[in-house]
């Protein structure tokens, strides 16, 4: 009882579009069942009803193509070849990928269908499927078709001004899978962005042309890259020329250390314990003071500092080596870029 109530609730709450499609599907199912039982005369009115402009319910392209196909097949069985051809052609025009299963249809039906393909010219590409493609080892694949022999050109056109990538240019008859290695025509990896897969064909039988486009987005999936190190700031480099002011500065630093040692041994020390450490502090302070004075005297004559020049060169070289390593590692990561291909609605939002 509860199950019944649940079913009723589902029927009541189902959207009108879904209910309409269900009506179409139900009728199509009935027609197919009649066709399978070879009750062609009963199946035909139902199929005609479905493709009629007065059919009040929603019908998908797939359902319409199926109805046309069964109409063509039914009429072929009844010997009405012209009408059968007409419906087969209608099915092919709606969806150029339409084909008959050789296991389920008679040779006569298949022959008529092939004739319909020769009389109709259309090219098509299947909607792009989402995919992750490693360009080093994998290929993206697009499926295209022509209804009969035609010169076919399949191109991938970037949304920007870059030249198109020609994926296929030759005679084609029927279904074809076109691989793409993820590269532009100049050999570089396709940059992220929108692309249009353009299929252009010219019939070799009818002298007519047809084209179709589907759109896709290409994104890059790259391992996180390292930032290169910034250029060395002046504070990170040693002065390359000895100037008087630097000598004064060093003198003050030496003096500061000397005073610091004396302060530690007096102000920070416990006076109740005597001055036992004072001599040690004086020794260190004196050494620092002498170093400061020597630095001051040394800098009285301005000149270049070869040792500092050498040290700065070493630091710059180390920086450049580190950056070169980062660039190399980033290049290795970039080489691992994976293309993420997604269907898109157009060349742009």
């Amino acid at each position: 009882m509860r199950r019944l109530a649940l079913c009723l609730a589902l029927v009541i709450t189902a959207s009108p579009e879904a209910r309409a499609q269900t009506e179409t599907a139900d009728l199509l199912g009935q027609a197919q069942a009649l066709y399978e039982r070879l009750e062609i005369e009963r199946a035909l009115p139902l199929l005609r009803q479905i493709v009629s402009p007065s059919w009040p319910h929603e019908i998908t392209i797939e359902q319409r193509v199926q109805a046309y196909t069964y109409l063509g097949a039914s009429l072929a069985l009844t010997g009405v070849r012209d009408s059968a051809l007409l419906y087969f052609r209608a099915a092919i025009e709606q969806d150029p990928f339409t084909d008959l299963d050789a296991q389920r249809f008679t040779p006569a039906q298949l022959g008529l269908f092939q004739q319909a393909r020769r009389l109709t010219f259309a090219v098509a590409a299947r909607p792009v499927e989402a995919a992750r493609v490693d360009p080093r080892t994998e290929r993206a694949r697009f499926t295209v078709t022509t209804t009969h022999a035609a010169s076919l050109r399949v191109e991938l056109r970037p949304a920007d001004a870059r030249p198109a990538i020609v994926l296929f240019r030759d005679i084609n008859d029927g279904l074809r899978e076109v691989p793409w290695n993820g590269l532009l025509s100049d050999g570089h990896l396709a940059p992220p962005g929108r692309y249009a897969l353009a299929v252009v064909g010219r019939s070799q039988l009818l002298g007519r042309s047809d084209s179709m486009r589907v759109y896709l987005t290409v994104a890059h999936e790259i391992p996180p890259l390292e930032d290169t190190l910034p250029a060395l700031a002046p504070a990170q480099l040693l002065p390359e020329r000895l100037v008087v002011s630097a000598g004064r500065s060093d003198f003050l630093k030496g003096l500061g250390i000397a005073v610091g040692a004396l302060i530690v041994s007096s102000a920070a020390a416990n006076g109740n314990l005597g001055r036992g450490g004072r001599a040690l502090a004086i020794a260190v302070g004196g050494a620092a003071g002498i170093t400061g004075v020597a630095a001051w005297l040394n800098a009285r004559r301005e000149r270049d500092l070869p040792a500092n020049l050498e040290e700065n060169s070493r630091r710059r070289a180390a920086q450049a080596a580190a950056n070169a390593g980062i660039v190399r590692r980033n290049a290795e990561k970039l080489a691992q870029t994976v293309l993420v291909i997604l269907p898109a609605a157009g060349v742009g939002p």
Partner: protein
Amino acid sequence: MNSARPPASPAVVLRVVLGFSLAPAAGIAQTTLSGTAAAALVVHQVDIGHGVEESRGLLLRAEAAVALSRLEVLIRAAGGSLSTSAAGAENRDVGEVSLEASVMPAPWLALRASGTSRTYATAIARQHWTLVEMGAEVRLDFTTSPVRGILRGGLLPVVSVNGLPRPDVALTAAAGIEYRSGSVTGGLLYGLERYDFPPSGATRRLEQLNTVTFRITMQRGGGRVGRL
């Protein structure tokens, strides 16, 4: 309304320190290894209410350090003997091991934390000290020569001594210079450790360690491990 900011939790402090230490330095992030041999002349003073007892001696020290980006970590071991001529006092052996870490938020500043286990041993007794120090070190690089001045200060929030209460005052301070030539760095440093223990009856234990350390460091790698 209580607008006082809550104190930073240890986890927050740890994150900040790690942030400083692991952030790539503006220059070249490079690992530097160093080994150090040092000799320290020690003057140890202690007053437990019967006058200052002074002992002196030489401590030999060995260190190994690694510097990575802005983080320096070193392990240190030292040992030696202190001799005294004070009446009733005994000579002592000293041994200690330390683990120290520094982060450098700026090239001239290092924030330090260390833990030390130290033992004084006489023929009849042994006293164990456990010390935790936190402090800062200012590094003054000379412009005209490969000399660096060092000023250091620190507090010891943890001082645990066998049979003694926690000191009221526990601090360290130091000043010195180091000179670098190639991969060898020589240094001279005066250091002070001061411990004022709380009064116990009519007496109060005051203890102080003065050192002057001469050290030689050999390093491998690009950075400069400046440690005195």
